[in-house]
């Protein structure tokens, strides 16, 4: 279905057409073999195909997320599209300007000033000296380097380096933008600026190819997803469908791995018994265990400035270990400090203690803006009325997002575990809404 849809629009607006793309890495046993191959022209290598027979096309304004395990060929694909690597087979038709944010900050000469490097690195990506003179003030403003721009780059912090590099590569609106996990650059306010700039490109009709391990970002940014598996396209289509399929596959693999770890001779009901009593598997909690990894306690050191989570308290917990939730409702009060006057968003995640996710909730998904407090902080109170869970231990995490819900300012991952006791002794995880007739 997707294929037909693609083919129909191919003539009209495709900015990137990839046909039967393949990349072979030639592995030589030693550099000497490499020279022998150079001199004789004979094949002295074993080949490893990082990509094989990959075909797809991108239309103007589309945003595609690339997912896949490590070693599935994501980076190779991005490098081929960016043109830094030559394909061993197939063709890539590009039209317009392609900008790749692959690994930032490379190519700056440490002895030259930031401004000097700007002009030189600009000419490497096709920005002429005259053009650069026009772009320069905007780039320096965006990079927030101010006077430091005339200092040698070797005096820069890594953050300054990355800021300058990002400001430079995104100074000109590209037709295709290739982003490789680069959203995690700089401090939180710069990260936000980066995301805003990328979103702005997207609104102006730039095609974006985005490679990330974060399903959250792919889900929010991308119209379609491409799943690479062992160098081949496993699935290409609507984001949600691909992510769900990928997730299911990952879970299956994990299960398989666990099975191998436990050994085939462990009877399945023994495994079931163990997971029924999570405590019995909690060996590190034994009194004579030398080292105990505990979830961080709630008395965290709160930084003095910048957006962060201030507190995320659960009501009605007793003092046990783990604390037991008294009452039927789960009420979480999350207090955060935002970024200036921008309205932040708050997320919350509930998991079974041994790792099965139960639900994720975020204010920006539900239009529930946090409430401004007199001291300038923000507060959201989340209430699960009559918590529909069975007995067990549960772990919670809290997240702080920016207004768009794309930049994660702060997260308290699995910061608290609590025990919930459901009075009826029926096994299960959640009590779904239901009716009998």
């Amino acid at each position: 279905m997707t294929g037909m849809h693609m083919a129909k629009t191919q003539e009209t607006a495709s900015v990137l057409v990839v046909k039967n793309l393949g990349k072979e890495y030639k592995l030589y046993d030693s550099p000497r073999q490499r020279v022998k191959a150079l001199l004789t022209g004979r094949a002295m290598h074993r080949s490893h195909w990082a990509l094989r027979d990959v075909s797809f096309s991108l239309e103007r304004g589309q945003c595609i997320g690339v997912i896949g395990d490590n070693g599935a060929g994501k980076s190779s694909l991005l490098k081929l599209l960016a043109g830094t690597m030559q394909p061993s087979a197939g063709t890539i038709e590009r039209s317009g300007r392609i900008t790749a944010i692959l690994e930032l900050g490379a190519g700056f000469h440490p002895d030259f000033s930031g401004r000097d490097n700007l002009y030189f690195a600009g000419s490497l990506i096709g920005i002429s000296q005259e053009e650069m003179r026009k772009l320069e003030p905007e780039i320096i403003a965006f990079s927030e380097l101010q006077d430091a721009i005339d200092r040698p780059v070797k005096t820069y912090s890594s953050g300054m380096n990355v800021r300058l590099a990002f400001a430079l590569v995104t100074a000109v609106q590209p037709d295709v933008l290739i982003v490789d996990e680069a959203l995690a650059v700089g401090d939180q306010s710069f990260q936000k600026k980066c995301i805003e700039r990328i979103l702005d490109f997207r609104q102006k009709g730039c095609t974006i190819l985005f490679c990330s391990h974060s399903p959250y970002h792919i889900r929010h940014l991308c119209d379609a997803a491409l799943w690479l598996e062992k160098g081949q396209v496993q699935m290409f289509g609507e984001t949600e469908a691909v992510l769900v399929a990928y997730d299911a596959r990952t879970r299956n693999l994990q299960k398989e791995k666990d099975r191998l770890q436990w050994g085939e001779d462990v009877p399945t009901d023994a495994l079931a018994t163990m997971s029924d009593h999570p405590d019995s598997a909690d060996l590190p909690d034994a009194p004579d265990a030398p080292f105990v990894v505990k979830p961080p306690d709630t008395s965290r050191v709160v930084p003095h400035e910048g957006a962060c989570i201030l507190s995320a308290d659960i009501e009605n917990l007793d003092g046990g270990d783990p604390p037991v939730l008294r009452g039927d409702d789960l009420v979480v009060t999350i207090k955060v400090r935002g970024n200036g006057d921008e309205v932040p968003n708050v997320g919350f995640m509930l998991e079974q203690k041994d790792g099965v996710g139960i639900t994720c909730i975020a204010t920006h998904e539900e239009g529930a803006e946090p409430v401004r407090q007199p001291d300038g902080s923000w507060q959201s109170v989340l209430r699960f009325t009559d918590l529909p869970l069975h007995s067990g231990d549960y772990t919670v995490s809290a997240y702080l997002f920016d207004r768009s819900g794309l930049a994660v300012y702060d997260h308290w991952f699995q910061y608290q575990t609590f025990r919930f006791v459901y009075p009826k002794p029926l096994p299960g995880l959640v009590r779904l809404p239901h009716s009998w007739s």
Partner: protein
Amino acid sequence: MRTFLHSIQEVWNARALVGVMTRREVAARHAGTALGVIWPYLQPLLSVAAYYLVFDIVFAMRLGEGASSHAVGTFLIVGALPWMAFCDAVSRGMGSLLEAGSILQKNPLPPVLFPVRSVLASSWIFGPLMLLLALCYIPVHHMQWGVLALLPLMAMQLLMTLLLSYALAIFAAALRDTLQLVGFALSVGIYLTPILFPIAMFPQGWRWLLWLNPMASYVMGYQSALLQGQWPALQVWVVSAVWIAVLAVVVNVLVRRSRDQLVDWL
């Protein structure tokens, strides 16, 4: 020769960028020094001045029969300066791809630009020095028309150095030992070039060995142009042209065999 022509086309298409990269390379060679751009010029000038002072003023050594000049220093300088240019360009050009590895892995640029910019940066320094030398030697060659041979000789030396550097840069990417091997060859090479002695002093039966050195013909050409004001012998031009043709074929083969994996090797 399709691959070779393609490389030429790549350089031509990016000529503005090559200009920027060359200026930058020259600047990088003296970055952070107080004297700045004078340094790259000063180093060869000082060596040349030392040769002149030691051999012609202090010791006043004389060469015997068969030399195109009898003053040792005057003779030595004519060969030594182009040899310095050659060594500088080849050793920098050879390492240029390895050095540019991180840039090439992040920017879609043709690799050929990097050896080209290294060699051009060297000739930007040594070219003017050669012309300056020709001016200083007016009392020796008396501005006879043979001096004009200097220009085609310099152009051909540039071309030969470009090809050799590119070929060695690809080799160095495949095998790092190339840098050491060639470094050694360059330091020994001055004795296998008729720089310190006139070719007449070389045993007759072994003279053909000198032609296996790509710089020998150029050094002899410069000697006849600058020391005698004579147009160099046909042999000089033929050997130089053959060297260029052979290197062009070698580069063509190397680029074709390494093109799709060169950047992975860096």
